[in-house]
Protein backbone atom coordinates (compact mmCIF):
# COMPACT_ATOMS: atom_id res chain seq x y z
CA UNK A 1 0.00 0.00 0.00
CA UNK A 2 2.71 2.39 1.03
CA UNK A 3 4.70 1.58 -2.07
CA UNK A 4 1.75 2.58 -4.22
CA UNK A 5 1.75 6.11 -2.89
CA UNK A 6 5.45 6.43 -3.52
CA UNK A 7 4.75 6.15 -7.23
CA UNK A 8 2.81 9.40 -7.05
CA UNK A 9 -0.60 10.20 -8.33
CA UNK A 10 -0.09 8.73 -11.77
CA UNK A 11 -0.42 5.36 -10.09
CA UNK A 12 -3.45 6.33 -8.01
CA UNK A 13 -6.84 5.06 -9.10
CA UNK A 14 -8.82 7.62 -11.10
CA UNK A 15 -10.49 10.34 -9.08
CA UNK A 16 -13.92 9.22 -7.96
CA UNK A 17 -13.31 5.48 -7.90
CA UNK A 18 -11.62 5.53 -4.50
CA UNK A 19 -14.08 8.11 -3.19
CA UNK A 20 -17.05 5.77 -3.38
CA UNK A 21 -15.92 4.14 -0.17
CA UNK A 22 -18.51 5.64 2.16
CA UNK A 23 -17.19 7.98 4.80
CA UNK A 24 -13.54 7.22 4.29
CA UNK A 25 -10.95 9.77 5.32
CA UNK A 26 -8.07 9.52 2.97
CA UNK A 27 -4.97 11.45 1.98
CA UNK A 28 -2.93 10.47 -1.09
CA UNK A 29 0.14 12.01 -2.63
CA UNK A 30 0.10 15.17 -0.52
CA UNK A 31 3.22 17.28 -0.91
CA UNK A 32 3.61 20.87 0.15
CA UNK A 33 6.51 23.25 -0.03
CA UNK A 34 7.15 26.76 1.25
CA UNK A 35 9.49 28.06 -1.40
CA UNK A 36 12.42 25.67 -1.52
CA UNK A 37 11.58 23.98 1.79
CA UNK A 38 9.58 20.78 1.42
CA UNK A 39 7.24 20.60 4.42
CA UNK A 40 5.23 17.58 3.30
CA UNK A 41 6.64 14.92 1.03
CA UNK A 42 4.12 12.58 -0.61
CA UNK A 43 2.09 12.02 2.54
CA UNK A 44 -0.64 9.39 2.37
CA UNK A 45 -2.82 7.44 4.79
CA UNK A 46 -6.42 6.29 5.25
CA UNK A 47 -8.57 6.43 8.37
CA UNK A 48 -11.58 4.13 8.64
CA UNK A 49 -14.87 5.70 9.76
CA UNK A 50 -15.10 5.76 13.55
CA UNK A 51 -11.36 5.24 13.99
CA UNK A 52 -9.18 7.32 16.32
CA UNK A 53 -6.07 8.15 14.37
CA UNK A 54 -3.13 9.79 16.11
CA UNK A 55 -0.86 11.82 13.91
CA UNK A 56 2.36 11.51 15.84
CA UNK A 57 5.41 13.56 15.08
CA UNK A 58 8.05 15.71 16.72
CA UNK A 59 7.81 19.50 16.44
CA UNK A 60 8.48 20.60 12.89
CA UNK A 61 7.43 17.26 11.41
CA UNK A 62 4.83 18.94 9.20
CA UNK A 63 1.73 18.31 11.32
CA UNK A 64 0.56 21.92 11.24
CA UNK A 65 1.13 22.19 7.50
CA UNK A 66 -0.87 18.99 7.05
CA UNK A 67 -3.67 20.53 9.15
CA UNK A 68 -3.61 23.74 7.17
CA UNK A 69 -3.95 21.71 3.97
CA UNK A 70 -6.72 19.49 5.35
CA UNK A 71 -8.68 22.51 6.55
CA UNK A 72 -7.94 24.44 3.35
CA UNK A 73 -6.39 27.37 5.17
CA UNK A 74 -3.79 26.90 2.46
CA UNK A 75 -3.81 25.09 -0.85
CA UNK A 76 -0.94 23.97 -3.02
CA UNK A 77 0.26 21.14 -5.19
CA UNK A 78 -2.84 19.06 -6.02
CA UNK A 79 -3.35 15.94 -3.94
CA UNK A 80 -6.19 13.53 -3.35
CA UNK A 81 -7.82 14.32 -0.03
CA UNK A 82 -11.18 12.83 0.94
CA UNK A 83 -13.01 14.04 4.03
CA UNK A 84 -15.77 11.56 4.96
CA UNK A 85 -15.93 10.54 1.32
CA UNK A 86 -15.98 14.08 -0.08
CA UNK A 87 -13.15 15.30 -2.30
CA UNK A 88 -11.64 18.38 -0.65
CA UNK A 89 -10.20 19.79 -3.87
CA UNK A 90 -13.29 19.60 -6.04
CA UNK A 91 -15.90 20.13 -3.34
CA UNK A 92 -14.17 22.08 -0.56
CA UNK A 93 -17.27 23.60 1.03
CA UNK A 94 -19.07 20.28 1.36
CA UNK A 95 -15.89 18.75 2.79
CA UNK A 96 -15.50 21.60 5.30
CA UNK A 97 -19.11 21.12 6.39
CA UNK A 98 -18.30 17.51 7.37
CA UNK A 99 -15.26 18.50 9.34
CA UNK A 100 -15.00 19.68 12.95
CA UNK A 101 -11.76 21.51 13.67
CA UNK A 102 -9.95 22.31 16.90
CA UNK A 103 -6.96 24.51 16.18
CA UNK A 104 -3.78 24.54 18.15
CA UNK A 105 -4.15 28.30 18.68
CA UNK A 106 -6.92 29.47 21.01
CA UNK A 107 -9.84 30.70 18.94
CA UNK A 108 -12.45 31.69 21.53
CA UNK A 109 -13.53 35.29 21.79
CA UNK A 110 -12.66 35.92 25.43
CA UNK A 111 -15.09 38.83 25.84
CA UNK A 112 -18.05 36.65 24.85
CA UNK A 113 -19.71 33.96 26.93
CA UNK A 114 -19.31 30.30 26.09
CA UNK A 115 -22.85 30.30 24.73
CA UNK A 116 -22.24 33.38 22.56
CA UNK A 117 -19.03 31.90 21.19
CA UNK A 118 -20.87 28.74 20.17
CA UNK A 119 -23.82 30.66 18.71
CA UNK A 120 -21.41 32.69 16.59
CA UNK A 121 -19.69 29.57 15.32
CA UNK A 122 -23.01 27.87 14.53
CA UNK A 123 -24.01 30.92 12.48
CA UNK A 124 -20.78 30.66 10.48
CA UNK A 125 -22.07 27.24 9.50
CA UNK A 126 -25.45 28.69 8.60
CA UNK A 127 -27.23 27.39 11.71
CA UNK A 128 -29.66 29.96 13.10
CA UNK A 129 -29.59 30.93 16.78
CA UNK A 130 -32.87 29.08 17.36
CA UNK A 131 -31.66 25.83 15.80
CA UNK A 132 -28.30 26.19 17.48
CA UNK A 133 -29.63 26.32 21.05
CA UNK A 134 -30.46 22.59 21.50
CA UNK A 135 -27.24 21.63 19.71
CA UNK A 136 -25.18 23.87 21.98
CA UNK A 137 -26.85 22.45 25.09
CA UNK A 138 -26.22 18.90 23.90
CA UNK A 139 -22.61 19.55 22.92
CA UNK A 140 -21.80 21.29 26.20
CA UNK A 141 -23.41 18.48 28.17
CA UNK A 142 -21.37 15.96 26.22
CA UNK A 143 -18.20 17.74 27.35
CA UNK A 144 -19.44 18.34 30.94
CA UNK A 145 -19.51 22.07 30.33
CA UNK A 146 -23.26 22.77 30.59
CA UNK A 147 -23.09 24.72 33.84
CA UNK A 148 -20.41 27.07 32.42
CA UNK A 149 -22.49 28.12 29.39
CA UNK A 150 -23.08 31.68 30.51
CA UNK A 151 -19.63 32.46 31.80
CA UNK A 152 -17.26 34.60 29.80
CA UNK A 153 -14.61 32.58 28.03
CA UNK A 154 -12.01 34.69 29.84
CA UNK A 155 -13.17 33.20 33.16
CA UNK A 156 -12.42 29.62 32.04
CA UNK A 157 -9.15 27.82 32.64
CA UNK A 158 -7.18 26.33 29.77
CA UNK A 159 -8.76 22.89 30.00
CA UNK A 160 -12.29 24.26 29.99
CA UNK A 161 -11.52 26.57 27.09
CA UNK A 162 -10.32 23.59 25.09
CA UNK A 163 -13.44 21.61 26.00
CA UNK A 164 -15.53 24.55 24.83
CA UNK A 165 -13.66 24.50 21.54
CA UNK A 166 -14.26 20.77 21.15
CA UNK A 167 -17.98 21.23 21.94
CA UNK A 168 -18.03 23.99 19.36
CA UNK A 169 -16.43 21.76 16.73
CA UNK A 170 -19.30 19.29 17.17
CA UNK A 171 -22.18 21.76 16.65
CA UNK A 172 -22.63 21.18 12.92
CA UNK A 173 -22.55 17.38 13.47
CA UNK A 174 -19.33 16.68 11.60
CA UNK A 175 -18.24 13.17 10.65
CA UNK A 176 -14.56 13.88 11.06
CA UNK A 177 -12.99 15.71 13.98
CA UNK A 178 -9.54 17.19 13.47
CA UNK A 179 -7.53 18.34 16.47
CA UNK A 180 -4.14 20.00 16.11
CA UNK A 181 -2.18 19.44 19.33
CA UNK A 182 -5.31 20.08 21.35
CA UNK A 183 -3.59 19.52 24.69
CA UNK A 184 -0.75 21.99 24.26
CA UNK A 185 -0.23 24.10 27.36
CA UNK A 186 -2.61 22.10 29.56
CA UNK A 187 -1.68 20.52 32.89
CA UNK A 188 -1.52 16.75 33.22
CA UNK A 189 -5.04 16.31 34.62
CA UNK A 190 -6.71 18.45 31.95
CA UNK A 191 -4.66 16.75 29.27
CA UNK A 192 -5.84 13.34 30.42
CA UNK A 193 -9.47 14.46 30.59
CA UNK A 194 -9.45 15.98 27.10
CA UNK A 195 -7.76 12.89 25.68
CA UNK A 196 -10.35 10.65 27.36
CA UNK A 197 -13.24 12.82 26.17
CA UNK A 198 -12.17 12.65 22.56
CA UNK A 199 -11.54 8.91 22.71
CA UNK A 200 -15.06 8.54 24.12
CA UNK A 201 -16.55 10.69 21.34
CA UNK A 202 -14.89 8.41 18.86
CA UNK A 203 -16.14 5.22 20.52
CA UNK A 204 -19.67 6.39 21.36
CA UNK A 205 -20.62 8.58 18.42
CA UNK A 206 -18.65 6.88 15.67
CA UNK A 207 -16.71 10.04 14.90
CA UNK A 208 -13.56 9.70 12.86
CA UNK A 209 -10.82 11.52 14.77
CA UNK A 210 -7.50 12.83 13.54
CA UNK A 211 -5.48 13.80 16.60
CA UNK A 212 -2.12 15.48 16.02
CA UNK A 213 0.30 15.21 18.91
CA UNK A 214 3.92 14.76 19.84
CA UNK A 215 3.07 12.97 23.09
CA UNK A 216 2.87 9.18 22.98
CA UNK A 217 0.99 8.88 26.29
CA UNK A 218 -2.13 10.33 24.64
CA UNK A 219 -2.44 7.30 22.42
CA UNK A 220 -4.40 4.13 23.29
CA UNK A 221 -3.20 0.68 22.10
CA UNK A 222 -6.14 0.34 19.69
CA UNK A 223 -5.59 3.72 18.04
CA UNK A 224 -4.22 3.97 14.55
CA UNK A 225 -0.90 5.81 14.58
CA UNK A 226 0.58 7.66 11.65
CA UNK A 227 4.13 8.75 12.44
CA UNK A 228 5.16 11.86 10.56
CA UNK A 229 8.78 12.92 10.51
CA UNK A 230 10.37 15.60 8.32
CA UNK A 231 7.28 15.68 6.17
CA UNK A 232 7.21 11.93 5.49
CA UNK A 233 5.07 9.10 6.81
CA UNK A 234 7.42 6.73 8.64
CA UNK A 235 4.82 4.30 9.94
CA UNK A 236 1.09 3.71 9.70
CA UNK A 237 -0.33 0.96 11.93
CA UNK A 238 -2.12 0.22 15.22
CA UNK A 239 -0.29 1.65 18.21
CA UNK A 240 0.22 -1.81 19.73
CA UNK A 241 1.77 -3.10 16.50
CA UNK A 242 4.19 -0.18 16.30
CA UNK A 243 5.08 -0.57 19.96
CA UNK A 244 5.74 -4.30 19.51
CA UNK A 245 7.22 -5.80 22.65
CA UNK A 246 8.31 -2.44 24.06
CA UNK A 247 6.31 0.75 24.49
CA UNK A 248 5.20 3.23 21.87
CA UNK A 249 7.50 5.98 23.09
CA UNK A 250 10.61 3.87 22.63
CA UNK A 251 9.49 2.79 19.18
CA UNK A 252 8.66 6.39 18.24
CA UNK A 253 12.06 7.64 19.41
CA UNK A 254 13.82 4.85 17.60
CA UNK A 255 11.97 5.66 14.38
CA UNK A 256 12.47 9.40 14.47
CA UNK A 257 16.04 9.31 15.75
CA UNK A 258 17.70 10.94 18.70
CA UNK A 259 17.36 14.52 17.51
CA UNK A 260 13.69 14.68 18.48
CA UNK A 261 14.51 15.75 22.04
CA UNK A 262 12.23 15.23 25.04
CA UNK A 263 8.77 14.00 24.19
CA UNK A 264 6.98 14.58 27.43
CA UNK A 265 5.48 17.77 28.81
CA UNK A 266 3.38 20.28 26.96
CA UNK A 267 5.73 22.33 24.88
CA UNK A 268 4.13 25.21 23.01
Amino acid at each position, binding site marked *: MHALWKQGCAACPPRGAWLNVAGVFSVRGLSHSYGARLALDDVGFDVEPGQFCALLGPNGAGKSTLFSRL*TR*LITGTPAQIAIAGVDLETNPRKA*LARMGIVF*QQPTLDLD*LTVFQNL*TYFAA*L*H*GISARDARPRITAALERLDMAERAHEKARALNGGHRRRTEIARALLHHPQVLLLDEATVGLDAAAREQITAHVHALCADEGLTVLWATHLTDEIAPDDQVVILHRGRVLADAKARDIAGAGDLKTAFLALTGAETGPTSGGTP
Partner: protein
Amino acid sequence: MTAYLTAMQAIIWREGLRFVHQRERFVAALVRPLVWLVVFAAGFRAALGLSIIPPYQTYITYETYIVPGLCGMVILFNGMQSSLSLVYDREMGSMRLLLTSPLPRWWLLVSKLLGSSAISVVQVYVFLGLAAVFGVTMPPVGYIAVLPALILAGLMLGGLGLFLSSWIRQLENFAGVMNFVIFPMFFLSSALYPLWKMAESSHALFLICSVNPFTQAVELIRFALYGEFNAPAFGWTALATLVFVGLAIWGYDPSRGKKRSLA
Protein backbone atom coordinates in the same frame (compact mmCIF):
# COMPACT_ATOMS: atom_id res chain seq x y z
CA MET B 1 -29.82 31.61 1.36
CA THR B 2 -30.92 31.81 4.99
CA ALA B 3 -27.60 30.19 5.93
CA TYR B 4 -25.81 33.09 4.24
CA LEU B 5 -27.89 35.69 6.04
CA THR B 6 -27.48 33.90 9.38
CA ALA B 7 -23.71 34.05 8.99
CA MET B 8 -23.72 37.69 7.87
CA GLN B 9 -25.90 38.71 10.78
CA ALA B 10 -23.63 36.90 13.25
CA ILE B 11 -20.46 38.45 11.84
CA ILE B 12 -21.93 41.97 12.03
CA TRP B 13 -23.23 41.24 15.54
CA ARG B 14 -19.78 40.10 16.66
CA GLU B 15 -18.08 43.16 15.16
CA GLY B 16 -20.56 45.30 17.07
CA LEU B 17 -19.96 43.46 20.34
CA ARG B 18 -16.21 43.75 19.95
CA PHE B 19 -16.57 47.47 19.44
CA VAL B 20 -18.79 47.85 22.50
CA HIS B 21 -16.20 45.94 24.53
CA GLN B 22 -13.44 48.30 23.45
CA ARG B 23 -14.63 51.54 24.96
CA GLU B 24 -11.20 53.20 24.68
CA ARG B 25 -11.30 52.68 20.95
CA PHE B 26 -14.64 54.47 20.73
CA VAL B 27 -13.42 57.41 22.80
CA ALA B 28 -10.20 57.67 20.78
CA ALA B 29 -12.19 57.56 17.55
CA LEU B 30 -14.18 60.60 18.70
CA VAL B 31 -11.46 62.60 20.42
CA ARG B 32 -9.20 62.51 17.35
CA PRO B 33 -11.52 64.41 14.95
CA LEU B 34 -12.75 66.67 17.74
CA VAL B 35 -9.20 67.86 18.43
CA TRP B 36 -8.86 68.69 14.76
CA LEU B 37 -12.21 70.46 14.72
CA VAL B 38 -11.73 72.50 17.87
CA VAL B 39 -7.99 73.15 18.00
CA PHE B 40 -6.56 72.78 14.53
CA ALA B 41 -9.44 74.48 12.73
CA ALA B 42 -9.37 77.43 15.12
CA GLY B 43 -5.73 78.03 14.28
CA PHE B 44 -6.19 77.59 10.57
CA ARG B 45 -9.30 79.70 10.23
CA ALA B 46 -7.24 82.86 10.07
CA ALA B 47 -4.56 81.47 7.77
CA LEU B 48 -6.84 80.02 5.14
CA GLY B 49 -9.25 82.07 3.09
CA LEU B 50 -11.97 79.98 1.52
CA SER B 51 -13.87 81.13 -1.54
CA ILE B 52 -17.36 79.95 -2.34
CA ILE B 53 -17.14 76.55 -4.01
CA PRO B 54 -19.86 73.95 -4.49
CA PRO B 55 -21.69 72.58 -2.57
CA TYR B 56 -21.40 75.71 -0.41
CA GLN B 57 -23.61 78.65 -1.41
CA THR B 58 -22.17 81.16 1.00
CA TYR B 59 -18.95 81.89 2.82
CA ILE B 60 -18.24 79.17 5.33
CA THR B 61 -15.97 78.91 8.31
CA TYR B 62 -13.00 76.61 8.17
CA GLU B 63 -14.64 74.42 10.82
CA THR B 64 -17.55 73.83 8.48
CA TYR B 65 -15.18 73.00 5.66
CA ILE B 66 -13.28 70.28 7.46
CA VAL B 67 -16.23 68.40 8.99
CA PRO B 68 -16.71 66.11 5.94
CA GLY B 69 -12.98 65.45 5.89
CA LEU B 70 -13.06 64.54 9.56
CA CYS B 71 -15.98 62.19 8.89
CA GLY B 72 -13.67 60.59 6.32
CA MET B 73 -10.91 60.47 8.94
CA VAL B 74 -13.15 58.59 11.36
CA ILE B 75 -13.94 56.02 8.65
CA LEU B 76 -10.30 55.81 7.56
CA PHE B 77 -9.06 55.08 11.08
CA ASN B 78 -11.84 52.61 11.74
CA GLY B 79 -11.16 50.79 8.48
CA MET B 80 -7.46 50.50 9.32
CA GLN B 81 -8.19 49.50 12.89
CA SER B 82 -10.42 46.71 11.63
CA SER B 83 -7.47 45.59 9.54
CA LEU B 84 -5.32 45.67 12.65
CA SER B 85 -7.88 43.54 14.44
CA LEU B 86 -7.78 41.10 11.53
CA VAL B 87 -4.04 40.68 11.86
CA TYR B 88 -4.56 40.23 15.58
CA ASP B 89 -7.45 37.84 14.94
CA ARG B 90 -5.35 35.79 12.61
CA GLU B 91 -2.59 35.55 15.16
CA MET B 92 -5.09 34.64 17.84
CA GLY B 93 -6.61 32.10 15.51
CA SER B 94 -10.21 33.25 15.36
CA MET B 95 -9.78 34.33 11.74
CA ARG B 96 -9.32 30.61 11.13
CA LEU B 97 -12.90 29.99 12.18
CA LEU B 98 -14.05 32.39 9.52
CA LEU B 99 -11.80 30.91 6.87
CA THR B 100 -12.83 27.30 7.56
CA SER B 101 -16.55 27.97 7.40
CA PRO B 102 -18.25 26.06 4.58
CA LEU B 103 -19.78 29.30 3.31
CA PRO B 104 -17.94 31.05 0.47
CA ARG B 105 -15.02 33.10 1.66
CA TRP B 106 -15.95 36.22 -0.32
CA TRP B 107 -19.33 36.29 1.40
CA LEU B 108 -17.76 36.07 4.86
CA LEU B 109 -15.24 38.80 4.06
CA VAL B 110 -17.96 41.09 2.65
CA SER B 111 -20.00 40.45 5.81
CA LYS B 112 -17.00 41.45 7.88
CA LEU B 113 -16.67 44.65 5.81
CA LEU B 114 -20.33 45.47 6.32
CA GLY B 115 -19.83 44.98 10.06
CA SER B 116 -16.90 47.38 10.21
CA SER B 117 -18.76 49.90 7.99
CA ALA B 118 -21.72 49.80 10.36
CA ILE B 119 -19.40 50.70 13.21
CA SER B 120 -17.89 53.54 11.17
CA VAL B 121 -21.35 54.91 10.46
CA VAL B 122 -22.26 54.94 14.15
CA GLN B 123 -19.01 56.73 15.00
CA VAL B 124 -19.54 59.34 12.29
CA TYR B 125 -23.06 60.11 13.48
CA VAL B 126 -21.86 60.56 17.05
CA PHE B 127 -19.12 62.85 15.73
CA LEU B 128 -21.63 64.88 13.68
CA GLY B 129 -23.73 65.22 16.82
CA LEU B 130 -20.73 66.52 18.78
CA ALA B 131 -19.84 68.87 15.91
CA ALA B 132 -23.36 70.25 16.12
CA VAL B 133 -22.83 70.86 19.83
CA PHE B 134 -19.77 72.92 18.86
CA GLY B 135 -21.94 74.88 16.46
CA VAL B 136 -21.13 73.20 13.14
CA THR B 137 -24.45 72.07 11.72
CA MET B 138 -25.64 70.79 8.35
CA PRO B 139 -29.05 71.08 6.68
CA PRO B 140 -31.35 68.44 8.24
CA VAL B 141 -31.70 66.53 4.95
CA GLY B 142 -27.92 66.20 4.84
CA TYR B 143 -27.87 63.99 7.91
CA ILE B 144 -30.04 61.44 6.08
CA ALA B 145 -28.53 61.83 2.61
CA VAL B 146 -25.05 61.20 3.97
CA LEU B 147 -25.87 57.66 5.16
CA PRO B 148 -25.32 55.82 1.84
CA ALA B 149 -22.16 57.87 1.25
CA LEU B 150 -20.82 56.82 4.66
CA ILE B 151 -21.58 53.16 4.02
CA LEU B 152 -19.83 53.25 0.64
CA ALA B 153 -16.80 55.05 2.09
CA GLY B 154 -16.75 52.49 4.91
CA LEU B 155 -16.72 49.60 2.44
CA MET B 156 -13.98 51.22 0.39
CA LEU B 157 -11.63 51.95 3.29
CA GLY B 158 -12.51 48.68 5.03
CA GLY B 159 -11.70 46.87 1.78
CA LEU B 160 -8.35 48.61 1.62
CA GLY B 161 -7.65 47.65 5.24
CA LEU B 162 -8.67 44.06 4.59
CA PHE B 163 -6.37 43.89 1.59
CA LEU B 164 -3.48 45.31 3.60
CA SER B 165 -4.16 42.87 6.43
CA SER B 166 -3.68 39.96 4.06
CA TRP B 167 -0.14 41.22 3.54
CA ILE B 168 0.79 42.42 7.00
CA ARG B 169 2.43 39.64 8.96
CA GLN B 170 2.77 41.27 12.34
CA LEU B 171 0.95 43.62 14.63
CA GLU B 172 3.84 46.08 14.79
CA ASN B 173 3.38 46.84 11.13
CA PHE B 174 0.40 48.97 12.02
CA ALA B 175 2.86 51.82 12.56
CA GLY B 176 3.90 51.32 8.95
CA VAL B 177 0.27 51.48 7.87
CA MET B 178 -0.06 54.78 9.75
CA ASN B 179 2.97 56.29 7.99
CA PHE B 180 2.49 54.94 4.52
CA VAL B 181 -1.28 54.67 4.18
CA ILE B 182 -3.28 56.73 6.65
CA PHE B 183 -1.20 59.94 6.68
CA PRO B 184 -0.60 60.24 2.92
CA MET B 185 -4.23 59.38 2.21
CA PHE B 186 -5.48 61.98 4.64
CA PHE B 187 -3.09 64.83 3.89
CA LEU B 188 -3.06 64.33 0.12
CA SER B 189 -6.80 64.82 -0.09
CA SER B 190 -9.44 67.51 0.02
CA ALA B 191 -10.13 66.77 3.69
CA LEU B 192 -8.19 69.75 5.09
CA TYR B 193 -7.99 72.15 2.15
CA PRO B 194 -9.87 72.55 -1.11
CA LEU B 195 -8.08 71.14 -4.11
CA TRP B 196 -7.82 74.51 -5.86
CA LYS B 197 -5.68 75.70 -2.95
CA MET B 198 -3.41 72.75 -3.55
CA ALA B 199 -3.28 73.53 -7.27
CA GLU B 200 -1.97 77.02 -6.48
CA SER B 201 1.09 75.60 -4.76
CA SER B 202 1.87 72.48 -6.80
CA HIS B 203 0.23 71.02 -9.85
CA ALA B 204 1.75 67.58 -9.23
CA LEU B 205 0.34 67.45 -5.72
CA PHE B 206 -3.00 68.60 -7.06
CA LEU B 207 -3.05 65.66 -9.48
CA ILE B 208 -2.15 63.19 -6.74
CA CYS B 209 -4.88 64.61 -4.51
CA SER B 210 -7.42 64.39 -7.33
CA VAL B 211 -6.87 60.71 -7.97
CA ASN B 212 -6.67 59.82 -4.27
CA PRO B 213 -9.81 57.73 -3.66
CA PHE B 214 -10.01 59.24 -0.20
CA THR B 215 -10.55 62.68 -1.80
CA GLN B 216 -13.41 61.24 -3.80
CA ALA B 217 -14.98 59.68 -0.71
CA VAL B 218 -14.67 62.95 1.23
CA GLU B 219 -16.24 64.91 -1.64
CA LEU B 220 -19.07 62.37 -1.86
CA ILE B 221 -19.70 62.87 1.87
CA ARG B 222 -19.34 66.67 1.59
CA PHE B 223 -21.98 66.98 -1.14
CA ALA B 224 -24.29 64.46 0.53
CA LEU B 225 -24.17 66.46 3.75
CA TYR B 226 -25.80 69.29 1.79
CA GLY B 227 -28.32 66.98 0.15
CA GLU B 228 -26.46 66.93 -3.15
CA PHE B 229 -25.22 64.01 -5.22
CA ASN B 230 -21.71 64.26 -6.65
CA ALA B 231 -21.79 61.77 -9.51
CA PRO B 232 -18.05 61.72 -10.40
CA ALA B 233 -17.11 61.31 -6.74
CA PHE B 234 -19.62 58.48 -6.45
CA GLY B 235 -18.26 56.80 -9.56
CA TRP B 236 -14.66 56.96 -8.37
CA THR B 237 -15.52 55.83 -4.86
CA ALA B 238 -17.59 52.92 -6.14
CA LEU B 239 -14.82 51.89 -8.53
CA ALA B 240 -12.19 52.08 -5.80
CA THR B 241 -14.49 50.02 -3.53
CA LEU B 242 -14.76 47.29 -6.14
CA VAL B 243 -11.00 47.24 -6.69
CA PHE B 244 -10.10 47.18 -2.97
CA VAL B 245 -12.71 44.57 -2.04
CA GLY B 246 -11.65 42.45 -5.03
CA LEU B 247 -8.01 42.69 -3.96
CA ALA B 248 -8.97 41.80 -0.39
CA ILE B 249 -10.81 38.66 -1.48
CA TRP B 250 -7.84 37.74 -3.67
CA GLY B 251 -5.53 38.43 -0.72
CA TYR B 252 -7.33 35.82 1.34
CA ASP B 253 -7.36 33.20 -1.42
CA PRO B 254 -5.98 29.99 0.12
CA SER B 255 -3.79 29.25 -2.90
CA ARG B 256 -1.63 32.21 -1.91
CA GLY B 257 -0.52 29.97 0.97
CA LYS B 258 1.71 28.26 -1.55
CA LYS B 259 4.14 31.06 -1.05
CA ARG B 260 3.76 31.68 2.66
CA SER B 261 2.42 29.87 5.66
CA LEU B 262 -0.71 31.14 7.32
CA ALA B 263 0.45 29.59 10.56
